[in-house]
């Protein structure tokens, strides 16, 4: 198509950013910071711990700064820019030490990688640090796959699972591809597709409480297609979606459940069945 671009360069009007080039990955570092995310912190802490174990298994020393909190996403998506910026600044300062940052949640990683640029759009000096953070932020599955280049032996029994990927992670960072490839390394795990797999589970942060009826209809459809996929459980690398999907399944009195991908992976490669 390029010859058709002729003099299409615009002036004074925004154009879409250039398509992201495939990311290049560094060699395995000795140390990383784990940014746990607030949802994992409070509701799925085992998953955070399993993420640490998976990283340590690769010979990496993991730091977990006790000063970390939320990445700022809820306020940002609700339109409270100043509030989001204050919280984002606290995390930015905390993570400003050059270490790679691994995040066990696609949407929070996306916040660092994509949206901090918008949050700090008016602060050129901060933007340099924002870009630096974006450059060294990795979603967990991406990090395990491309930086650690894990070589795993599957110690678990044969099983069938469905994979759910949060929309932001899928569309901003292709994490569904990372997770698929990672799961593909597990010899006894069959990943089954589910109906309308790329469709949103209906969480959307505050959307789930501002538009509960629409959100509820979405999660009902999502849980149905997951159950009907033939999988025995669902795995996801996103705390928000997990909270939404499991909360809905429990409300429906379904036995089917989802769990965090980090916990699933740790169970397969360590041979330890989690409580």
């Amino acid at each position: 198509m390029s010859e058709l671009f002729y003099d299409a360069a615009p002036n004074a009007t925004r154009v879409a950013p250039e398509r992201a080039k495939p990311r290049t990955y560094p060699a395995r570092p000795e140390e990383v910071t784990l940014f746990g995310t607030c949802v994992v912190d409070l509701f799925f802490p085992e998953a955070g711990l399993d993420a640490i174990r998976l990283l340590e298994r690769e010979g990496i020393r993991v730091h977990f700064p006790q000063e970390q909190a939320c990445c700022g996403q809820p306020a940002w998506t609700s339109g409270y820019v100043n509030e989001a910026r204050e919280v984002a600044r606290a995390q930015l300062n905390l993570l400003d030490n050059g270490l790679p940052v691994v995040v066990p949640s696609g949407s929070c990683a996306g916040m660092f990688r994509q949206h901090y640029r918008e949050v700090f759009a008016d602060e050129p000096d901060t933007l340099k640090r924002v870009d630096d953070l974006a450059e060294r932020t990795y979603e967990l599955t991406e990090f395990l796959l491309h930086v650690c280049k894990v070589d795993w032996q599957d110690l678990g029994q044969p099983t069938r699972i469905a994979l759910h990927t949060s929309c932001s992670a899928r569309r901003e960072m292709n994490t569904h591809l990372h997770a698929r490839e990672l799961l593909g390394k597990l010899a006894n795990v069959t990943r089954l597709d589910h109906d309308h797999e790329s469709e949103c589970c209906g969480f959307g942060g505050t959307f789930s409480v501002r538009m509960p009826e629409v959100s509820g209809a979405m999660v009902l459809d999502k849980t149905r297609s997951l159950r009907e996929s033939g999988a025995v459980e669902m795995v996801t690398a996103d705390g928000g979606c997990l909270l939404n999907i499991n909360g809905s399944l429990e409300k429906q009195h379904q036995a089917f459940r989802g769990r965090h991908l980090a916990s699933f992976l740790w169970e397969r490669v360590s041979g330890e069945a989690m409580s």
Partner: protein
Amino acid sequence: MSQRIPVTELTDSFRGRAVGALADNQLRTNFRVAMDSLMKKRADAFPDEEEREGLRELGNHIKARALSRLPDLLEQLEAKLTANGVHVHWAETTEDANRIVHSIIEAQKGTQVVKGKSMVSEEMEMNDFLAERNIECLESDMGEYIVQLDGEKPSHIIMPAIHKNRFQVAKLFHDKLGVDETEDVNELIQIGRRTLRQKFLEADVGVSGVNFAIAETGTLLLVENEGNGRMSTTAPPVHIAVTGIEKVVENLRDVVPLLSLLTRSALGQPITTYVNMISGPRKADELDGPEEVHLVLLDNGRSGAFADAQLRQTLNCIRCGACMNHCPVYTRVGGHTYGEVYPGPIGKIITPHMVGLHKVPDHPSASSLCGACGEVCPVKIPIPEMLQRLRQENVKSPAEHPKVKDGGAKYSRKERALWRFWVTLNTSPGFYRLFLWAATRFRKLAPKNVGPWTENHTAPVPARRSLHDLAKAHLNQGDR
């Protein structure tokens, strides 16, 4: 399963209408089936991802370039059209546009109008305006004809009657036209066609929309699949085209990629059955065509979006409908839930500029920001980013001078105070850890009913120990 709280007091809101739509199983099936098929058609029309992405980028650049020169291009368009013998009219509001259209019809002493599909005429509510003045305005697009017959509004910008299946259409035709009930789609189309043919011959004025207005040549380009657009613009003695100011593009060369993006994104077609290029009234040596051609250029809030470099991207839109076809919210609640002319993601980002946020306060929040719309938009409008920006404008206090018409519709001191508290919590590590400690320690006391969340879910229960706690014990090392 979950108990639905009656939201009767909300019936005149997005949420209230959504509740009604969600309860209508027929409607939901109609939309799901139709949207699934449209998504597949689009996917099949773009087999090569590289080609598709290159073309979308090009489309984005062309529209951005046109917008960056919008005032100039509009002037050039007016000059060229005038030279071609087309009368150009400018309308700031829909009221102005209607008056212009009415005065043209009146000058002809016209009483009958046939209309090709035009969303701008819907925006103007032209049919009602003319009906009040005893002018019959008949929709000639099959979908538009169906919704007009049923006294409804379009529920999709490309397929106005997509909320109805063929059985519902059969019943409608039977009830309104007194024909035998038939479920044969072809027969249904023939019934509509017979009724319309006669009207084309009788009409005093034909009205149409415009897909692209080409500044360099003064050409109005109109795509359609039924031939009704061509009939409406050529059979009656007078043709009035109505369009928004953002439809202008620089030259014919720009149209080629945009047209390909439009037809493939909309219905998965390589090209539409009809592509009409209108460059003026009938010339002395021509056998057919209207004696008079008018173009009404409507602003209706578009210049407000244009004034903001970020929101201006909204005006890239070429009205293909792909964003709604791929929207999980639209698929479930249908077009009428949006309560205004343009539904779906594009409706959510353009309507506030037209009618103001006070009238559509829920538009920006009725989205999970899943991004499916932005992913398919052929001109790469960052729709989620637009929604997020509108949310910002929606919660601003009057002192913060919202930049969108009637912004601050959702400003609430109470909510602002809650977010301030959230900031304190997340920027004071000691306080945050205390919160984690309390939430995990007293997890059994977590409320069982947490507002709307527990309509669809059980209440979330905090873990026994937080990750802060577990990580500290596990790592057993100094914090970094």
